[in-house]
């Protein structure tokens, strides 16, 4: 790495770093553009606000969406494993929403063609709540839900 580039890296803001990452071939320009963050959806304080922010309207209930390796009871709300699998053709995105968290939307995953419509992650839950798995498939929205009981909340302090 030459001195100029190091100086840019040290002083640079996010835009500069992104540009460098693009230049270095780590990220394609279209990926950099895709790095938006849906503030209005993540700011939503209830299911309706989050769904509105996502543009999901009133999603249809679907039995083609399953929770996998997701507990009925979480002893520790700070680390709750959640897996969602969609059998809906052309699944484009999977979102996890936790009704009783301060902000309902936890995560959105964009599923590229060729990627299995199944993701596993770990979330925080403030208290016992319904958890919704929202799926966008072929341009339409579908949902399934599951109650997870929390023994010890994960947002206290």
């Amino acid at each position, binding site marked *: 790495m030459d001195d100029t580039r190091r100086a840019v890296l040290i002083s640079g803001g996010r835009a500069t770093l992104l540009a460098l990452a693009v230049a270095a071939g780590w990220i*394609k320009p279209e*990926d950099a553009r895709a790095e938006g*963050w849906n503030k209005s959806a993540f700011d939503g304080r209830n299911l309706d606000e989050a769904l509105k922010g996502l543009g999901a309207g009133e999603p249809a209930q679907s039995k083609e969406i399953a929770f996998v390796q997701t507990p009925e009871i979480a002893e520790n709300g700070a680390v709750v494993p959640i897996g969602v699998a969609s059998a809906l053709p052309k699944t484009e995105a999977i979102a996890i929403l936790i009704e009783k968290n301060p902000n309902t939307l936890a995560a959105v995953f*964009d599923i590229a063609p060729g990627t*299995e419509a199944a993701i*596993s*992650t770990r979330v925080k839950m403030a208290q016992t709540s319904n958890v919704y798995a929202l799926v966008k498939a072929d341009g339409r929205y579908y949902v399934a839900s599951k109650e997870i009981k929390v023994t010890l909340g994960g947002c206290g302090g």
Partner: protein
Amino acid sequence: MKIRGSLVGDSTEVKVLMNHEMETGQRKDAQGQTIPAWFIQNVSVTWNGKTVLSAQWGPAVAKNPFLSFKFKGGAKGDRIVIHWVDNRGDQRTDEAIIG
């Protein structure tokens, strides 16, 4: 970041463990001051330069985030690159070879 890519049939299973506080912005410190939110907002996973998964996260993703998924294809020796950006603009890129 700990990244593991392993072949399962004709797919590659990716498992990632990232180091990040994922501070919610809901907690208060000993002086009663709110601890500002600090969390990963964007994640992308590329295989041979092609994006296989991208994600937007809120602060409800657990501390030291875990992510697992599979994509079709992949061969021993292929490169998987994972990149994240947090709400302060900090970012990290790491890669692993499919084994």
